């Protein structure tokens, strides 16, 4: 199929429009949010006189100015749009300044004084747990008999992990523009992965029915989960101001505001206990995961669920007990981020395996290989594994990239005792595809064929760089039998597709692609019926291939455009709405078992890290990957997702350090202090794809968005190995990320290990 990104030409010419690139309507005003200066406390006063006095400031809105409900919580109703009495994190929105320009609004906002009676904040999830600050009751996934498992084990090892969060760093910061419409309605252009969530929240805040709120999304300059729930607040702010002032209002966050005010990937603290036989077979695994949820629920409970689902990664563990809790702290409400809790769950068992390897003297990759899930194994959540590919991916990786050769060349390198040491780590993955909230696994598509043969397609999928528009164009054009250029992807709009699920969980193409196929089926059926009639043949003998109607496989003189034109004059319906709901999904939260996933994505990767023993800096050899892709709809898009996901995963495990002080203040709050991988840092990726059919999904494809991120965990353990090749006594606590600081401290650690 196609090898291009749908928007590529506009992107490279700089003509793609993001929200604020569209010329603003006359009279547009600009909003800025004033955030709390304290991490916890009650609001004593908000002094606005100075700000109001600036010429060009139109309004300063507070909680009491909200006409509807001051409530935007998506899963739990615990989040006010503007804090009314209590603040719960630094940057917590308390007021909105609306002015003639963005710059003026910011200047005025700086003059607003928010006075808070401060209380001591909680920043550590374990402390929150001890104090009973839980967003929801803790949950436990279990299988087998955990005590018996441990009693049979030859070794039982315990340890802890501290896993830091991660900033999304979408290059386009959060933004929205709201324009009042007649009849009290409002139209909101939002940079959101969840148009329906924005629609519902705006309606609630303004006290309107959903149909008075139109949300439109052309594209996002990156999302990665950070605009699944967290775009909502900014859209509501713009809508509130527009509604109250009856003027168009735009809000664009400055990078510093975005970093300070928006939630990130959840940090986790964890305890593990693993029991193995002396040959490295895992017999029992117990873990407690303390999720640092931040101040409000956001999507934390759903994220937590995925940590539980993926707590044993790609391994068969007969006896499991994993407990996890959403711990409320005074940080930004943490949120979705590519992997959605899965990576944190996986890190813990990978750490436990590193511990086991140290203890048993068996290489980590040997233990990993020995314990991979096999066909028919049942997961701790009760889903039998079908088409399990863990062993196949691992073995193809070992063979294609000569794993044993790599292991011995790493050893040979280290034996030279030069200025660097190397370490190797393998990272297998197994990631379930579907929203774990079963009801979200639905999608709609609206297909229009116009009289000239061009096609417009609207779905619930939001284009954010993941290539969903490219794939939907490819799916629609292939299914119709026409060239891709004929298909235009319309913006994602709540008036064309209602009740859409967020573009998330890697499932956007699966769901919206199948809905598109259903819409195509209807229109194509009508067109072929007409063609058959005109050709005087049964429908079964006609087809539409490469823009031409065929009869018994031979081309006729009925081209696509002729057929469409004929259909129009024959008053055939050239539009259709398709709907799809993933079949056979279920999950029972009472027993914590069921079939939550349509299928799993598998893969394996190997990392070789090289550490400079004098400086503590490091590089990586090319990363080798075998990835289970299904049939690729658009290889350029899929390779891009693998490389891009890996870059984020490696960044999370190495450079990207979110530093907070004990008052909950974010210290790495600018791009000068928060470092994500750049071109120099990123190693080459060598990916081999396993391409075979994935039944039930568009053209046998598989979701690709999230899983590759988790390969990045391998970077951590490769670095750990390299450090230990120099300093075998280094204790190296399982703290992620493995920054150059942790590496150097590990290389030169003597008795007192760092404790930070």
């Amino acid at each position, binding site marked *: 199929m196609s090898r291009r990104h749908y928007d590529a030409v506009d*992107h490279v010419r700089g003509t793609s429009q*993001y929200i604020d690139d569209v010329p603003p309507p006359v009279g547009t005003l600009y909003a800025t949010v004033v955030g709390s200066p304290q991490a916890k406390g009650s609001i004593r006063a908000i002094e606005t006189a100075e700000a109001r006095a600036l010429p060009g400031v139109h309004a300063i809105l507070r909680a009491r100015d909200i006409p509807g409900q001051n409530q935007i919580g998506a899963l739990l109703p615990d989040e006010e749009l503007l804090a009314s009495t209590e603040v719960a994190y630094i940057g917590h929105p308390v007021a909105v300044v609306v002015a003639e320009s963005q710059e003026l609004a910011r*200047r005025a906002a700086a003059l607003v004084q928010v006075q808070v009676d401060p209380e001591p904040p909680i920043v550590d999830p374990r402390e929150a747990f001890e104090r009973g600050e839980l967003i929801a009751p803790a949950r436990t996934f279990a299988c087998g008999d955990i005590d018996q498992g441990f009693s049979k084990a030859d070794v039982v090892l315990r340890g802890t992990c501290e896993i830091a969060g991660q900033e999304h760093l979408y290059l386009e910061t959060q933004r929205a523009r709201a324009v009042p419409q007649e009849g009290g309605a409002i139209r909101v252009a939002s940079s959101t992965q969840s148009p329906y969530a924005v629609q519902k929240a705006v309606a609630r805040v303004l006290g309107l029915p959903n149909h008075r709120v139109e949300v439109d999304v052309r594209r996002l300059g990156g999302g990665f989960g950070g605009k699944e729930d967290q775009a909502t607040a900014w859209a509501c702010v713009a809508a509130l101001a527009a509604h109250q002032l009856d003027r168009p209002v735009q809000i664009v966050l400055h990078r510093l505001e975005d970093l300070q005010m928006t939630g990130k990937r959840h940090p986790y603290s964890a305890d593990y206990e693993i029991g193995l036989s002396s040959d490295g077979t895992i017999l029992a695994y117990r873990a407690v995961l303390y999720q640092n949820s931040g101040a409000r629920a956001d999507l934390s409970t759903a994220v937590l669920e995925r940590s539980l689902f993926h707590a044993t990664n790609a391994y068969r563990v007969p006896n499991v007990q994993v407990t996890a809790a959403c711990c409320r702290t005074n940080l930004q409400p943490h949120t979705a981020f590519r992997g959605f809790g899965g990576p944190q769950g996986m890190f813990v068992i990978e750490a436990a395996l590193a511990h086991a390897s140290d203890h048993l003297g068996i290489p980590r990759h040997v233990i990993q290989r020995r314990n991979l899930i096999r066909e028919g194994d049942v997961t701790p959540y009760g889903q039998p594994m079908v088409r399990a590919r863990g062993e196949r991916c691992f073995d193809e990786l070992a063979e294609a990239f000569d794993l044993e050769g790599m292991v011995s060349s790493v050893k040979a390198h280290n034996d030279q005792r030069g200025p660097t040491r190397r370490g190797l780590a393998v990272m297998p993955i197994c990631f379930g595809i579907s929203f774990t909230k079963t009801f979200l696994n639905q999608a709609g598509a609206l297909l229009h064929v116009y009289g000239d043969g061009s096609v417009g397609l609207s779905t619930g999928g939001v284009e954010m*760089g993941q290539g969903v528009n490219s794939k939907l164009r490819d799916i629609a054009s292939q299914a119709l039998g026409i060239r891709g250029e004929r298909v235009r992807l319309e913006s994602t709009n709540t008036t064309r597709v209602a009740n859409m699920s967020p573009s998330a969980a890697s499932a956007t193409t699966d769901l919206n692609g199948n809905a598109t196929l259903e819409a195509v089926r209807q229109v194509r059926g009508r067109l072929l019926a007409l063609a058959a009639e005109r050709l005087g043949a049964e429908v079964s003998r006609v087809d539409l291939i490469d823009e031409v109607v065929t009869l018994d496989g031979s081309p006729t003189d009925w081209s696509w455009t002729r057929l469409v034109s004929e259909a129009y004059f024959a008053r055939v319906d050239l539009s259709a709405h398709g709907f799809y709901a993933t079949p056979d999904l279920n999950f029972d939260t009472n027993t914590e078992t069921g079939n939550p996933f349509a299928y799993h994505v598998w893969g394996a990767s190997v990392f070789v890290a090289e550490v400079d023993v004098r400086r503590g800096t490091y590089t990586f050899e090319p990363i080798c990957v075998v990835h289970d892709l299904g049939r690729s709809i658009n290889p350029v898009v899929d390779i891009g997702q693998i490389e*891009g996901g890996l870059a984020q995963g490696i960044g999370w495990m190495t450079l990207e*350090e979110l530093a907070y002080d004990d008052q909950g203040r974010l210290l790495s709050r600018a*791009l000068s202090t928060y470092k994500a991988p750049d071109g120099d840092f990123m190693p080459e990726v060598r990916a081999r794809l396993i391409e075979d059919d994935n039944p039930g999904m568009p053209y046998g494809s598989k979701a690709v968005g999230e899983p590759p991120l988790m390969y990045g965990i391998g970077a951590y353990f490769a670095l750990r190995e390299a450090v230990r090749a120099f300093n075998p006594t280094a204790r190296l606590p399982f703290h992620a990320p493995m920054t150059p*600081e942790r590496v150097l401290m590990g290389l030169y650690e003597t008795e007192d290990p760092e404790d930070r």
Partner: protein
Amino acid sequence: MKINLLVNGALTLADAAPGLLALDWLREHRRLCGTKEGCKEGDCGACAIMLATSEPDGGVRVRPVTSCLVPFGELHGRGLITIEGLNVPGELNPAQRAMVEEGGAQCGFCTPGFIVSLCWYILYSTDPEPSLAGFRDAISGNLCRCTGYGSIFRAAERVVARFAAGGDLEGVWQAPDRVAALVERGAFPAWLAELPQRLTELRVGLEPAKPRSSEAGAPPIAIAGGTDLYVQRGEELPHVSVQMLNHRPSWSYIEVDEERVRIGGVTTFQDFAEHPEIQRMLPSILDTMELIASLPIRHRATLAGNLINASPIGDMTAYLLALGAQITLVDPQGQRREMPLEDLYLGYKTLDKRAEELVGQIAFPVVGADDHVAFEKVSKRRCLDIATVNAAVRVRLSSDGHTVQAARLAVGGVAPIPLLLREASAVMVGRRLDPNLLHQVLQAADGEVAPISDVRGSAAYKRLLARQLLLSALTDLFPRQLPLDEALGLVAPAGAAIGGRP
């Protein structure tokens, strides 16, 4: 302030505050929205444009810059090239075509910035032939969160292949006027070939720009490259009176005589590194530069600005301290005073300098054959990151290579000021260079540093790093006198696997 400039070749009369950012002017006043804002502090490259200036020698120079750090007032008499100006009607330019073919754009938000950087390299690089390494340097200031860069590098390789033997642009790179040759092939829009002439025309009879009267009054803030000022005081600058040092082209120079190297008060990092005499004297300067900021920032950042910003981790500050720099301060009355650089720093960001004094010149003794210079820096990310700790050394050895005749060791990030290690330097002079001396140097240095914990690292880490960077600099400079195994033996923990230990 009213100014005359070229925007993508079109003569433009514009009026705005001199301190307004070029980025905001382009997007808000001109609605040229291909240029994006990703950070407003020079760290992402989404706002990349090119800046064309006519040089004292009459030529035209085009530099890649981040428009979020360029003041509007500086654009008087200059030319801007934005993404919109690189579009060929109905066609894609070579960078664009390759990026489309390789899927180098995902969400697209970073893409115009990447295209501008790639095009700058194609149009204006002085490399003898294009290379992937050259392209990598050209995008050293561009961040992409979507692609992981693989597709962008493959796109660069495609462009390299087109210029190589057998490619459809073979020979074009080496053409006497590459831009014209590319235009002739239809690879770039025609106006680019006319840029030099249009810029010359613009400058004929051009009056100096006059600040509006309301802007006069308060003492102006001196802006050189703006790479510190805009990051630190960006919101304020459009509203205060400013003085554009870049309007003094005569302040940009590098002169070398028998004894001294003299550098002007607005000379940039890049001009310094590209100067043939500097490269001859300091052969590792290009490797050093790779660790400092990014290409577009180095095209703006001045040495003097780095010194006056007085950050304890300024890279060129540490470097110039080790080189033994003297600075000349000039006041508006023309009074001059010269002082050793280390005397400028009195305390954290406090300088022995009056507000109205400017750094007119920086000078250091020429680096001879027996002088050995090294620079070390560790930051979280190797490129485009601020040092956690940096170090620079200048050591002169006797001709037999054994005795230290002179030494200047500097470290940054371990004290309130950029630190010249007076004791550790003194320990070396007149002594035989061997591991024993190294041990004493490291000990002396340890007594001189006093790091604090901050977002870039804990105090313990910085102390360790200072030692390790001095060790790295010296062992790399003098592998014969300071064998790696022996040097590591001085510092490695018991049980470490190093040469010479079982």
